[in-house]
């Protein structure tokens, strides 16, 4: 589902008053119950990959070092603030720097300690961690390709040809506070990535529009997905489970609404999942060959629209002016479908959906959507939101246009 935000509920109360009431009650609750009652976390979540374990160990060591530095340095300062006060009758000294070998020695000791901390205590584990972070290729068992797009993730398994889009599944009523929020509010998707436990997965990242960042805290992995470039990282999950993360780079309107959910399963379960996905894919490919009725296409197209298009163009097809134009009564959508020879007309509806529009958020869906999805969503848009073109385009026609 998407995240076009609803206006405050009409409950008879003013939304501001409701907000203030909720604010007050939360303050009181937090103040009374204190941190003990709340599920507050003061450190990284439990690590489940070698990288995450290494990062947590480094982090804990660093926190110990900087906390010690903080306490020692400011204990000295506070001692001075207590003892060397005018009101305590302390006469001011006049020294302006170290005098003599002994004072110089004591003035330089802190810097020797600091250099040791920087380049040995912190530096050596840091360099080791960098080398293991960047070692994406050695003994990699499989590849997962992650493509960021506004505002969803596409996952691709090049070895088995599986490819799908994963979007937020939190209902918009929860986001607008009309419904109670579920346990995994904003961290749940319609179709999670499935990865085998114990295998080294080389993760390749790219993007189709702006920069996104793929982040799963429990994996110790955060890497940017950059349009036009491939970046890589790796995960080797040690424990079955469901791991949740989010896009971490501001990528526009719904940046806060594109979670990452990974299901880590034992290998046999993973292989079964792969087989099932392949079957579903071949069934879909078969259906692309046959002729579809317009009603079928419209029904199928609505599903794709609600998943891929609705964040910008909105459920009612009205868009969000001025960045995201309306589809309802749009000249492009209500224009001709194809030219006389069955070819794409530049700037037409089919062209926009397949090839995008440069310089705008409208991206090319040629590679990311299947023949059925493209044909159905185009047909749907031409026959919904008050558009009454009455025409349709077949998956087979899309295939021919590619």
């Amino acid at each position: 589902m998407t995240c076009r935000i609803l206006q405050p509920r009409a409950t008879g109360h003013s939304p501001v008053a409701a907000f203030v009431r909720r604010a007050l009650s939360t303050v009181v609750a937090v103040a009374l119950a204190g941190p003990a009652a709340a599920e507050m976390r003061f450190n990284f979540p439990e690590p489940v990959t070698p990288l995450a374990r290494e990062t947590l160990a480094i982090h804990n060591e660093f926190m110990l070092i900087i906390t010690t530095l903080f306490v020692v340095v400011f204990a000295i300062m506070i001692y001075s603030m207590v003892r060397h006060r005018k009101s305590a009758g302390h006469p001011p000294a006049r020294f302006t720097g170290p005098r003599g070998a002994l004072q110089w020695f004591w003035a330089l000791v802190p810097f020797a300690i600091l250099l040791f901390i920087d380049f040995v205590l912190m530096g050596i584990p840091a360099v080791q961690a960098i080398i293991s972070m960047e070692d994406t290729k050695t003994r990699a068992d499989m590849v997962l390709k992650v493509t960021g797009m506004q505002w969803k993730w596409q996952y691709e398994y090049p070895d088995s040809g599986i490819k799908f889009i994963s979007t937020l599944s939190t209902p918009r009523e929860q986001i607008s506070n009309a419904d109670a929020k579920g346990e995994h509010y904003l961290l749940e998707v319609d179709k999670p990535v499935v990865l085998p436990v114990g295998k080294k997965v080389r993760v390749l990242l790219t993007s189709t529009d702006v920069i996104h960042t793929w982040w799963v805290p429990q994996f110790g992995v955060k890497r940017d997905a950059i349009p036009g470039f491939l970046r890589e990282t790796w995960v080797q999950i040690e424990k079955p489970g469901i791991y949740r993360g989010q896009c971490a780079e501001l990528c526009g309107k719904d940046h806060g609404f594109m979670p990452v959910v990974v299901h880590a399963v034992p290998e046999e379960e993973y292989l079964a999942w792969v087989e099932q996905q392949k079957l579903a894919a071949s069934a879909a490919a078969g259906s692309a060959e046959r002729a579809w009725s317009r009603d079928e296409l419209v029904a199928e197209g609505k599903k794709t629209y609600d998943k891929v298009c609705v964040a910008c163009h909105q459920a009612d097809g009205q868009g969000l002016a001025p960045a995201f134009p309306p589809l309802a009564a749009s000249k492009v959508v209500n224009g001709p479908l194809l030219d006389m020879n069955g070819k794409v007309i530049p700037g037409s509806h089919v062209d926009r959906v397949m090839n995008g529009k440069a310089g705008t958020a409208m991206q090319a869906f040629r590679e990311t959507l299947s023949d059925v999805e493209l044909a159905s969503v185009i047909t749907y848009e031409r026959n919904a939101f008050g558009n009454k073109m009455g025409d349709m385009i077949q998956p087979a026609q899309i295939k021919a246009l590619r």
Partner: protein
Amino acid sequence: MSIATTHPADPHPGHYQPAGLLRWLTTTNHKDIGTMYLTFALVMFFVGGAMILAVRAELFSPGLQLMQPEFFNQLIGIHALVMIFAALMPAATGFANWMIPLMIGAPDMALPRLNNWGFWLLPPAAILLTLPFVLALFGIGDGALATGWTFYAPLSVQGGMGIDFAILAVHILGISSIMGSINIIVTIFNMRAPGMTMMKLPLFAWGWLITAFLLIATLPVLAGAVTMLLTDRHFGTHFFNAAGGGDPILFQHLFWFFGHPEVYILLLPVWGLIPHVLATFSRKPNYGYTAQVYAFIAIGILSVVVWAHHFFTAGMPIPALIYFMFSTMAISVPLAVLFFCWIATMWKGAMSFETPMLFAVGFIVLFGIAGLTGLILADVAADAQYHHSYFVVAHFHYALFAGGIMGVMTGVYYWLPKWTGHMYSETLGKWHFWLTVVSFNLTFMPQFFLGLAGMPRRIPDYALQFAEFNAISTVGAFVLGLSQLLFAWNVWSCVRGGPKAEGRAWEGAEGLEWELSSPPPHHSWETQPVIK
């Protein structure tokens, strides 16, 4: 070197002296211009603060209550630009205008008309930054810059006209800063009192001198980067478009080549003024003057060679990661020199804790947290977790609020008696200090934990496990914001009246500025003092 010629005492016969608004529009007097900079900074501080209080209100609890994500994104980016370019930098320039001529025994800034122009570029730039919000109310455009203050391409190529407004505002602000910097460098190099060698220059002037060089070195790079962005947006160039042979990461390199030194641009003037306050209220000369000067220079140089630590997660070769990590860690050495000298200046002094001293000590402790967390952020592996998260948000607010804004407040309380001739209310000042310190930590300490737990920055809504810390942070932010009204009130009443301040307003204060009356005459040091 100094200029030997001085003006005779000038009673201004026939001198054109307009009154009212025209006086402020046409003034070339460094004190008037300093006052205008500081007033502008205070106003914009509240503008930027109001924006972020709206953001914190939205983040008080999960779900979207007050605003749409688009508007949220605009607020966070404009908040940062306003606070950095329209509050903190003008405040520092205001200090420089007021104090550098007084401290170095110069009659005025070297280039008074440039000075006037430099200030009057600011209001139009501030209007450009905020106007898109107003235009959007009338249905024109889609609001202000919504990319965060970093303008990252290609998001900024895709955005609306708010981005063009912000690009032009940054250009104007940059021109203003470069003019101010040229003025400060020329003044310090040429107009010091006879006998004031560079190694007798007050530390505040040294801090500003390094800042001015950094501004001149790096602002043109930012100007270039945003101009390339502008042509990518409107004239079909492909600097940052991979499909056209460009590179989105190039933008990040250019931006942070400016952006990292910018941190020190904001902080060096503060590091310059803190030792004056510590020495005054410890009644003891500064410890390690020479070491502090060299630390300023070292930090200035290091600051332009570490930029890529702002985007380790974008991916770069291992040698680059290691280089940027260690060069960043190396900054801890000159910074530690400063901390060492600050504490050694207090050591065995005869301290008293008036408001400026309280703020200076608060600055040292809280800025210490920024420095130490900065040290661990330099580590590439740990940074992979901290980066883009609330940990970074907390870190840079400890640097720029506790380090920058509280440093500026130290300076305001310290010099306010000099500027106005009145003492401010010590009671209100102490209330302001304690409320600020407590609510600041209440606001930003929880954000460290939010970041560690996995909350990304710049999101308008969040998962349920982040709710408690966000609620606490919002409460802290509102107390923090409201307690700044005490500051504004205290400053305003001090301008209006109060107990008479002496020329040497503080018992232990040393330096040329304290040789003058409080307030100093409109034209001061017309005969330059001679330093022995």
